[in-house]
């Protein structure tokens, strides 16, 4: 390990904020089971509900609409399986840039009576709204589209997608059709960057993950709009109003609440700081390196997120070489390198195989400075030169 390390993979994991750690430790003292009837149990219950209401405040929703989970993957699974359990058949619409925690449950349902449909995205990764309108049919039961792609960084027009879903819902009501339609949104990558106001988003369910916003790993939540019938996928003691069994993680809930509060407080300032840095980096990359293609949308991009492809290089090699210089970045996806299958998300943008193979995803965070990015650029340039000389 190099002495001075530069971490640029905040989309994969974030360090725990000291304030979050403090909130978590405070709650750890109250160890009793929140279902216990004695005073320490009641105290734990109270801490849990305080955390839940703090979360609800950030999301502009009711406390009862928050189901605490073990993270983003569980939340996605719970939403998809939980919403569709009693429905049994219909069309599920998603997009190829979704996280596997969304794609895999849908693929599984695709083998049990549901039909999976991919909505069209353009070369920036954005959903084509006019095409989506016709992709949604009277058989559609679920639309699952992330707020923003953690791999590409492109922000989706969720509110407009929600409008299309509501239109269809209204049409069915008028036609007296019983088939329901839901909109699930994975907002894990968007937290701390975009408004999480559930009223304005108009979604039915939404996943969040504490680990992406300077909270602990293993803690997440699913927002579930009031009145929705969500079946649990984990059975047991009927916690979380029967929607998720298992003794509640009170310190985790406190940490989630604190992470969300801080992320929301810092959001606007962080976004403007990181947006400027991202734009400058994108410009310098294209100026200083040949064959650079910036992936995603020029404007509708998560602040501090930059996916780019270096044609002719292997992203996994670049990651390994950057690591030897103390710089940590990701490729954006675990790709099947030995099978030479590059990222499905990057390929979905219309990139060639060799372009997709050379993809790096850089994601900045609170500690990222301009000096870090300058150093990154300098090291990347020299690595490309090294790789050119030893190319096989």
């Amino acid at each position, binding site marked *: 390990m190099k002495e001075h390390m530069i971490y640029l993979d905040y989309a994969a994991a974030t360090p725990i904020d000291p304030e979050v750690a403090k909130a978590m430790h405070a709650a750890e003292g109250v160890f009793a089971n929140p279902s216990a009837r004695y005073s320490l149990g009641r105290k734990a219950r109270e801490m849990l509900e305080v955390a839940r209401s703090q979360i609800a405040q950030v999301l502009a929703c009711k406390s009862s609409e928050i189901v605490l989970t073990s993270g983003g993957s569980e939340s996605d699974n719970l939403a998809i399986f939980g919403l569709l359990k009693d429905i049994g058949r219909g069309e599920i619409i998603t997009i190829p840039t979704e996280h596997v925690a969304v794609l895999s449950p849908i693929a599984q349902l695709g083998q049990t009576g549901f039909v999976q449909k991919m909505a069209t995205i353009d070369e920036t990764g954005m959903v084509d709204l006019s095409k989506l309108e016709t992709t949604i049919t009277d058989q559609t039961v679920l639309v699952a589209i992330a707020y923003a792609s953690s791999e590409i960084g492109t922000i989706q027009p969720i509110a407009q997608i929600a409008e299309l879903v509501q239109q269809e819902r209204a049409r069915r009501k008028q036609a007296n059709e019983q088939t329901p339609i839901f909109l699930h949104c994975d907002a894990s990558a968007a937290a701390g960057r975009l408004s999480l106001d559930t009223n304005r988003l108009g979604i039915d369910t939404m996943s969040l993950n504490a680990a992406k916003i300077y909270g602990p790993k293993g803690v997440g939540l699913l927002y579930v709009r009031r009145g929705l019938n969500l079946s649990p996928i984990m059975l047991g003691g009927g916690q979380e109003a029967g929607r998720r069994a298992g003794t509640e993680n009170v310190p985790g809930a406190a940490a989630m609440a604190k992470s969300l509060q801080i992320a929301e407080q810092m959001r606007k300032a962080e976004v403007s700081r990181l947006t400027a840095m991202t734009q400058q980096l994108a410009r310098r990359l294209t100026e200083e390196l040949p064959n650079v293609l910036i992936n995603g949308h020029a404007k509708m991009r998560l602040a501090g997120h930059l996916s780019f492809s270096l044609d002719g290089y292997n992203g*996994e*090699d670049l990651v*390994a*070489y950057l*690591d*030897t210089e103390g710089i940590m970045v990701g490729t954006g996806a*675990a790709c099947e*390198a*030995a*099978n*030479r299958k590059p990222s499905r998300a990057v390929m979905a943008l219309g990139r060639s195989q060799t372009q997709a193979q050379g993809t790096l995803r850089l994601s900045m965070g609170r500690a990222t400075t301009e000096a870090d990015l300058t150093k990154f650029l300098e090291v990347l340039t020299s690595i490309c030169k*090294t790789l050119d000389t*030893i*190319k*096989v």
Partner: protein
Amino acid sequence: MSQVVFVGLSGGVDSSVAAALLKVQGYHVTAVFMKNWTADVAGNKCPWEEDLASARAVAAHLHIPLKIYDFQKEYRAKVADYMVDAYRRGLTPNPDVMCNQEIKFRTFYDMCRSEGADFVATGHYARMHDGQLLRGVDRNKDQSYFLYRMPHDAAEHALFPVGEYEKSEIRRLAERFDLPTAKRPDSQGLCFVGNVSLKDFLHEFIDYKPGDIVDDQGHKVGQHDGAFFYTIGQRHGLGVGGGKPYFVYDKDMAKNEVYVTTDPDSALLNKDRLMAADEYWWQAVEADKVYDVQVRYRSTPVEGRIMRHSDKFEVVFSQTERAIAPGQSVVIYDGDVVIGGGIIQ
């Protein structure tokens, strides 16, 4: 123009040090990760992806290119199928010997040579001096037993840099080269299944077939779930409760019976000779010369003479040798020099 070496980089410490040593020695080094066939036995994912990431980190650290060769088909056919088939026939096969003979020093070697390699190196603990295979310096780690069937044409261009060192020195060198694999634990178990027991692996291909366990007095002493799962000399896992441990001394595949004895010194278990076929030689054997003979990987060699028969050879030991398992290789040494060997009948 320096000579070109392709080194098989597995993601472990030994092959990493091999690559580093070759680079220091002035060769033009290219690393190759071999993607061999891997079985996903329930509940256990073979860790090849982690191995590849580790190999990539080493290649980056050494600034050498990394190629990936995909030999899944060849490996499945020539090593995994061979192994399962041999067990099915009641033998105790040696997949490592087969892998070196058919994959590493045939398919892999040929591919490296065709892509420009003057030499092909691996992280084996063995030595290659002027085309002659020798034991590795570290007798405890020596892998020459697994290499005795490597094709001679490949031996002419093979390099085993770590075989010149003790394992402890290899770990120290890994630290000195600051290799990312320096602290990686050595791999264990079957290379293509990860941490799964041999029996669980075989059961993916061979159904259980209950039969009797019979002792040397002719008494049934228990039940087994398939004679093919047992190997001669095996002590554990008979499912025979209480008392002294039993040792397998023979099997009858037709009757599906496993024969055991409680006497570890029994003549049933300790033989003074063996027959081997499918022989492979590095040097001609001399009649009446006493050689070091090894019937298992890492077993202490015993003295023996070689007697030629038409299409096989016989080894006559100076003292008895325990648990000689058909299907395993017998390897003949003269000191550190590998003379040759064959498959025990």
